[in-house]
């Protein structure tokens, strides 16, 4: 142990400001990087999940629409719905 008391340790031989500035800024930057990386990961996952939910809603809406238009079950297949959903997302953007 290089220091005899806690006060002496904090004082850092007179260089307290510079030493603690260095350690503090480094710790803050690393913690910021860590937290922002974690939250970025969560945001990306959420966005992907949300887009799927939106897609699902659009599919349901498209199916109901087709039934209203008088299409019968065998005519409403996955391909037609997907095409309709793609069309409606294109219109939105």
């Amino acid at each position, binding site marked *: 142990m290089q220091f005899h008391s806690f006060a002496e340790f904090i004082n850092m031989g007179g260089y307290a400001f510079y030493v603690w500035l260095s350690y503090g800024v480094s710790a803050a930057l690393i913690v910021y990087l860590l937290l922002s990386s974690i939250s970025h990961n969560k945001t990306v996952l959420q966005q*992907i999940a949300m887009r799927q939910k939106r897609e699902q809603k659009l599919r349901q809406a498209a199916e109901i629409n087709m039934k209203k238009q008088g299409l019968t079950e065998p005519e409403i297949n996955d391909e037609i719905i997907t095409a309709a959903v793609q069309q409606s997302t294109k219109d939105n953007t």
Partner: protein
Amino acid sequence: MFKWLHPYANPEVSYNFCGKLQPWLFRISTIFLVIGLVWALLFAPADYQQGDSFRIFYIHVPAAILAMGIYFAMASAALASLVWQFKLADASAAAMAPIGAVFTAIALITGAAWGKPMWGTWWIWDARLTSELILLFLYLGVIALHNAFEDKNLAGKAAGILSLVGVINLPIIHYSVEWWNTLHQGATVSKLGAPSMSAVMYWPFLICLLGFSFLIAALVCLRFRTEVLARNSMRPWVRELAINSLRSEQQISCNSQQCHSNNPNQGTK
């Protein structure tokens, strides 16, 4: 020869591999950093000329070395992606850039805080400091290019070319203290052969260096996985993963709020 590497070209395999590695890297880095920094702050002797300001060294030098190391790794990944079109190499380069930028900033700031008491100035436009600042700008440019294009392949190409051009800065940083007159001291630890430093100072430095390396590896894993997800968002395995994570998150928030909304009997008292 590289057959064992081949399965990792699959994004899902890489994603899972990094997911397994990540918690261990974080644990190991925590252990090393706690030991190294406590040693550096409490037990390492003060320098006979610089006194206790020398303790900045234990952050400054690992950060500076690793900032250059990350740049080299990023440029290698960029080369692999430009030459062989490895899409995952692009993702890893994009993952490394912000981490390198943060460590370059740490090296610059701790250097300034060390320069003020030792040299009498926070900043001076000499070769080592200026070339290190250029390294920071290179990182910022690479990050900006990765975010500048909607098309990630195009963004990766542009950022990759910039990172390859920027490699020229690495030898300039390293040899700047020999080629030009500078306030910055010459190499002490990165000299081939014996470092010009006593063992009682060298050991805590090595442990800090290892700790920061593992921390960077863990952060790269985390950011790489995010990049892989964002770039493969239409793949079934990513979609399934996203839905599952949303579900488990809702369950957690549900448990903490006692789930009033899902239990209709509770509201009709």
